[in-house]
């Protein structure tokens, strides 16, 4: 059976892609952020995931505002990245796992999540930058199942809906008959705002609260409406919805094993977290 080993959540700011291309990882500006990945590399080397389910939001590469799904699940054998217009290098493509994708799709729809299914899907920096951060030199061997959440055009799905979407994905993965080690990724955030007279807004206290509650009390965070999240976390801080879905997919006993938080990277409060997920059987055996 497939087993969910844990999750990684990370910021996906486009300028990280430029910093990687220019090898600025040890510059004073970038080091506090990139250092936060040492533990992630250790954890991935130890845990050896086969597949990553990645919750992210498209910023206008695969989807335009004319036809914008609230939730979309990739079912491709390969995911390409392309020019996004803001000057970050194009990533190498990432292998998919269509059989697992369709298993997740079938289970989500049976569970009344009426998602969009995508046999062709470009993935933007919010997938490729976390991949490049987790596996420097684009040396990933995992396959991915990308799941996009609309965080761009309101109305957005609620915090509760995204947590429950994740839970449904988690149940689907747990029922997959193949022996696979599956990790869950949530990308984006934390607090930031790019637009308007409030551009540059960052809220350390709210970010800290979100990170503190995520492992043990994710349901606490569902009290915040989308309007509240925009107010507390900034207009683009709503990318935290991807983190909520990631957390939902960790269906066992969840512990936070790593956290790095640094202000600022670009206009953003940058955060990286690692969670372990232990199922009940493993807990009894331990």
């Amino acid at each position, binding site marked *: 059976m497939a087993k969910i080993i844990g999750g990684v959540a990370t910021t996906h700011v486009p300028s990280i892609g430029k910093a990687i291309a220019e090898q600025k990882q040890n510059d004073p500006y970038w080091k506090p952020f990139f250092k936060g990945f040492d533990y992630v590399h250790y954890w991935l080397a130890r845990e050896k995931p086969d597949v990553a389910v990645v919750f992210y939001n498209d910023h206008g590469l695969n989807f335009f505002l004319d036809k914008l799904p609230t939730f979309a699940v990739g079912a491709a054998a390969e995911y390409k990245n392309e020019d996004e217009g803001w000057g970050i290098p194009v990533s190498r493509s990432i292998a998919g796992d269509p059989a697992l994708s369709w298993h997740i799709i079938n289970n989500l729809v049976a569970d009344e999540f009426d998602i969009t299914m995508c046999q062709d899907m470009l993935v933007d920096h919010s997938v490729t930058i976390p991949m490049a951060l987790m596996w420097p030199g684009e040396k990933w061997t995992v396959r991915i199942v990308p799941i996009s959440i609309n965080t761009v*055009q309101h109305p957005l799905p609620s915090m509760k809906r995204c947590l429950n979407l994740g839970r449904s994905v988690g149940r689907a993965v747990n029922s997959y008959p193949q022996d696979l080690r599956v990790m869950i990724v949530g990308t984006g955030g934390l607090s930031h705002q790019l637009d308007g007279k409030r551009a540059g807004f960052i809220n350390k206290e709210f970010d800290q609260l979100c990170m503190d509650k995520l492992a043990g009390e994710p349901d606490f965070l569902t009290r915040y409406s989308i309007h509240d999240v*925009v107010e507390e976390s900034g207009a683009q801080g709503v990318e935290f919805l991807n983190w909520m879905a990631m957390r939902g997919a960790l269906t066992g006993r969840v512990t936070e094993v790593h956290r790095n938080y640094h202000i600022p990277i670009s206009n953003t409060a940058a955060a990286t977290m690692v969670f372990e997920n232990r199922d009940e059987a493993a807990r009894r055996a331990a």
Partner: protein
Amino acid sequence: MKQDIPGTTLFDGDQAQKGLALNRMCFSFNSAENRAAFLADEEGYCRKFGLTAEQRAAVKSRNVLAMIAAGGNVYYLAKLAGIFGLNVQDIGAQQTGTTVDQFKQKLAAAGR
């Protein structure tokens, strides 16, 4: 009931309808060929995408707040800003009426 958040325009259905032509033009800037075509003939390129007079004036003035008022979504506007070599600190400074250095200082201060 919708309460306003100061200095923030929620990109909702009203904004999405208003901004469709402008955002569609910015979406086209994913292609290097289209970015070059815009630079070669800005007026003609904007006409081809059917920008409203308000959107055309906002683009012409390079004023991000005016583009947002005309329905622009910041992820799409960032593709336009990229053509002029402007990043999100540059447009942050422009929108908040500060220098880029002051804007960066404000970001750094949020971490202390």
